[in-house]
């Protein structure tokens, strides 16, 4: 349980049907740090992220090879319960996807399915999580309204709050701020840095500034390959791979 790396990915390949989307990924995600995944559209960032909590398995045509260890256990092993994995590895998606329920129910959903029923405990968790997602003030007076009445940015922050509510070990975020305005983005970025104290965060982003601002490590992907993975400072100041450099300096494509 005390391995330095939360995830270690070893020679991982992934296919959608016959199309290979990930090639020989080797990567170790350090504990309690922020790892950013960058790369051009379609390079496989989302695919990699969804593999880490085995969400990718909801697509039936997917095939994989290789090993991904979470705390030293291969997540693909039989005895590993996928629900437990997902309790520890939370996720925030690219498109806001609140449930067609009230704001309160959206956030309380996670704790509820995991057996927390006491009203006052739930109330507290909901408030805390909504505050954490920087949306408490906007919605505190309408917690019982349907989440679909909110704007895109508000919806996304509800989704982040929903994820925070179960206090996972690792939080996977797939372009979580792409629908947010700068102020909310800033708040979320601060929050992410805050959360780093207790949690490991892996964030996919198309925004290199964001990656540079908040992450400790950065992975650069291209066409399904992991081109370079090292300290963020190094990637942005002194990339080893020519392709990384080209991408970062915008000379690319």
């Amino acid at each position: 349980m005390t391995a330095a790396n939360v995830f270690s990915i070893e020679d991982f390949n992934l296919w959608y049907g016959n199309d290979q989307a990930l090639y020989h990924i080797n990567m170790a995600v350090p504990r309690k740090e922020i790892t950013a995944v960058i790369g051009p559209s379609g390079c496989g960032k989302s695919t990699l992220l969804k593999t880490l909590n085995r969400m990718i398995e909801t697509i039936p045509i997917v095939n994989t090879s290789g090993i991904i260890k979470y705390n030293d256990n291969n997540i693909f092993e039989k005895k590993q319960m996928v629900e437990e994995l997902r309790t520890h590895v939370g996720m925030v998606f690219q498109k806001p996807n609140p449930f067609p329920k009230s704001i309160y129910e959206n956030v309380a959903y996670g704790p509820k399915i995991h057996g927390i029923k006491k009203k006052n405990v739930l109330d507290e968790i909901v408030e805390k999580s909504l505050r954490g997602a920087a949306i408490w003030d906007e919605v505190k007076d309408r917690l019982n309204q349907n989440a679909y009445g909110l704007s895109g940015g508000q919806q996304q922050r509800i989704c982040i709050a929903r994820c925070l509510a179960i206090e996972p070990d690792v939080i996977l975020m797939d372009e979580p701020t792409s629908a947010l305005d700068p102020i909310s983005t800033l708040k979320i970025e601060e929050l992410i840095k805050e959360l780093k104290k207790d949690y490991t965060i892996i964030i996919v982003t198309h925004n290199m500034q964001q990656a540079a601002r908040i992450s400790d490590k950065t992975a650069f992907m291209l066409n399904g390959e992991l081109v370079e993975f090292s300290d963020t400072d190094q990637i942005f100041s002194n990339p080893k791979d020519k392709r990384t450099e080209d991408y970062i300096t915008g000379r690319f494509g």
Partner: protein
Amino acid sequence: MTQQINISQIKGRVTRNKIYKGIFILAISLAMLALATLLYRILSQGLGYLSIDFLKNYPAPYIEEAGIFAGLMGSVFMMCITAPVSIILGVSTALYLEEYATQNRFTRFIQVNVQNLAGIPSIVFGLLGLTLFVYLLAMGYTLIAGALTMSLLVLPVIVVASQEAIRSVPKEIREASIAMGATKWQTIWRIVLPASIPGIITGAILALSRAIGETAPPLIIVGAAAAIYTIPDSFLSKYTVMPIQIYSWTARPQEEWQFVAAAGIIVLLAILLCMNAVAVWIRNKFQKRY
């Protein structure tokens, strides 16, 4: 290449849109007109024969004493069995097919089978009920045998409607739930089912309307009575239902009985309306448009 789109063409398209809108309104008005005509005929014939006594009385050979109480209670009790049985079976089947079954031959077989069942005429279900429930399971000509026959009869409609409803739940919100560590069943129970309730209810109401309003023939075969002076007090009671009473009134030679039948139909429609009202209420309460 620029702007090959000219205004007169847009005008034409807009006019076409208006014309079609007119046609659509006409179509729906036609359907409403048919309904109105039907209702007018029934109401004008039956209203005069409707009274509290008509609701309270058992069948009788005299028009002024005849009532629909036995049929009314029989239908209600039958619904109390048929609705839960068929909805539980139907929604479960739909869930199995949509959520659990892998796409293999067996699944496709069940699917074809369900759709095929929907097309089998009610009278054949009557023959099945007679063989299976009345004789093989030795239930006799009882309420439970009739209700179970009805459940099987409406089952496929509920399955097909529920499947459509379940299928239309966006995959994003499913994913969100699964990513929280919810198990498959938790996701289904807390996210998928609530989101598909409007569709399921629509299907169930259509199906149960059919069960309550139609199908005198299969119930005659499984032994619903033409005249009875008790109401069911157990699953194994003898019973009758409204459509059978109504049908037996329409077969009388005296014209006035047709009006009594119309009064019976009004009661039946009133119940139907109540069921629909409940359905509408549920639908509006839960309906979300994504």
